[in-house]
């Protein structure tokens, strides 16, 4: 698992045959939508949100599930309101992960093969905190990303950019006692996708996180500061509030930069607050510890 991220029953996802030259640029559907069409839609949504804020609406903090400019979301978002529920029993706890699950070297995505990967070596470091500012210690962090050329090792990625035999783009770690995580990797490239004509995703790293309660579980994406693709990207723009968007953008940190080795980026992640009380700890926590 450590040095061969594609071990097991997902071998068919590895070693994607190189796409036909320019396959990604083959003529799209005749009814193709342009960036201008999509940008106009996103602008209208943004203006409506600005008006709502002005009229006293609470700022939004999460992406909208119903965000039509990301076309694949149209048939995949619930149309009924999420049902408010108090978390109960199992939801107030999270699965436990530890060093049996993740080897320390899995946090270095640059050493998973025989040679050095192509691209700009980076360090991504930060803390996982809960909504009360408490560190989330000893929990699993998983990341995945494209290589420096903007290509994923995935059979569905048909972007005719080169694969890198020395880069898989998958990492894991367990947070430290202070909630800290740290990955060494390569800065991912931007890549095209087929939401609309000339759609490009800003460079990003996918993050998967657990808290102390299962209700804190999130999957998200970390972006790099100053990306010119932000205003054009329906996935980033599905978060309509600028302050909320900014929470997904890492900070360049020269203190973290390693001389003659790698550039440093810092990104802290805040989960929702824990809902567990001492009564639930008494009722389940102790019993669980006796397992």
């Amino acid at each position: 698992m450590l040095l061969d991220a594609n071990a097991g029953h997902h071998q068919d996802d590895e070693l994607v045959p190189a796409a036909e030259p320019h396959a990604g640029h083959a003529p799209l559907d005749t009814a193709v939508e342009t960036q201008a069409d999509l940008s106009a839609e996103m602008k209208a949504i943004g203006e409506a949100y600005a008006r709502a804020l002005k009229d006293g609406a609470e700022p939004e903090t999460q992406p909208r599930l119903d965000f039509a400019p990301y076309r694949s979301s149209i048939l995949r978002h619930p149309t009924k309101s999420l049902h408010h529920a108090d978390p109960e029993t199992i939801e107030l706890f999270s699965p436990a992960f530890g060093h049996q699950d993740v080897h320390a070297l899995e946090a270095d995505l640059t050493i998973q093969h025989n040679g050095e990967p192509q691209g700009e070596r980076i360090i991504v470091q930060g803390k996982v905190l809960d909504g009360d500012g408490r560190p989330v210690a000893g929990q699993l962090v998983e990341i995945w990303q494209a290589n420096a050329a903007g290509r994923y090792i995935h059979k569905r990625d048909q972007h005719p950019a080169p694969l890198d035999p020395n880069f898989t783009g998958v990492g894991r770690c367990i947070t430290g006692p202070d909630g800290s995580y740290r990955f060494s990797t390569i800065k991912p490239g931007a890549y095209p996708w087929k939401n609309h004509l000339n759609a490009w995703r800003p460079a990003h790293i996918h993050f998967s996180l657990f808290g102390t309660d299962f209700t804190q579980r999130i999957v998200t994406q970390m972006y790099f500061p100053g990306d010119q693709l932000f205003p054009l990207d329906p996935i980033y723009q599905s978060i309509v509030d600028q302050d909320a968007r900014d929470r997904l953008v890492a900070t360049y940190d020269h203190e973290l930069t390693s001389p003659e080795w790698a550039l440093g980026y810092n990104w802290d992640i805040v989960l929702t607050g824990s809902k567990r009380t001492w009564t639930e700890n008494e009722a389940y926590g102790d019993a669980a510890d006796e397992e």
Partner: protein
Amino acid sequence: MSKLTPTPGQTVGPFYGYALPFTKDNELLAPGSPGSIRLQGTVYDGAGETIPDAILEIWQPDAHGNVVQRTGSLVRDGYTFTGWGRASVGNSGVFTFTTVNPGTTPAIPGKPAAAPFISVAVFARGLMNRLFTRIYLPENEEALAADPLLSSLEPERRKTLIARRDADGGLTWDLRLQGKDETVFLDFEHVEGTSK
């Protein structure tokens, strides 16, 4: 303590398939081991089409209702029940787990008892943020009727959270992201303006 604003979620995208799955990810128990059952279902979109690029996680108590806090989910030893698993749907939109029927977790003093359920987190390409839901066992009508969440739902919606018992003892539970019979998804936060 100061309350921090949570980091937004984002879609899992189309390319998690070489990163999130792992060997025996969907086998909380070895298939065929005593007490093991198959939990299966199909994921549908708003047009009633199956979704091939969704990934589900389940988190549940053991058969005795204990919350398990044991490591080893990612590198399973074949004997330890950790209570957590992950399953990618296949090309036909079907997911499968091998697990146990969750036991009844003791009630918290002063709170109504919840009927046994499995907690579910749903991720998919095109789904902007993860969704939470629950899978209840179909037996014990009395417990289901008294369950705080189920009793707060209209009968038509309530049934989307209750699995069917299969002839082989397994459970079948389908997930509908949208449309008629849309699954009930849960919001655990009180703050308005989130997860709209």
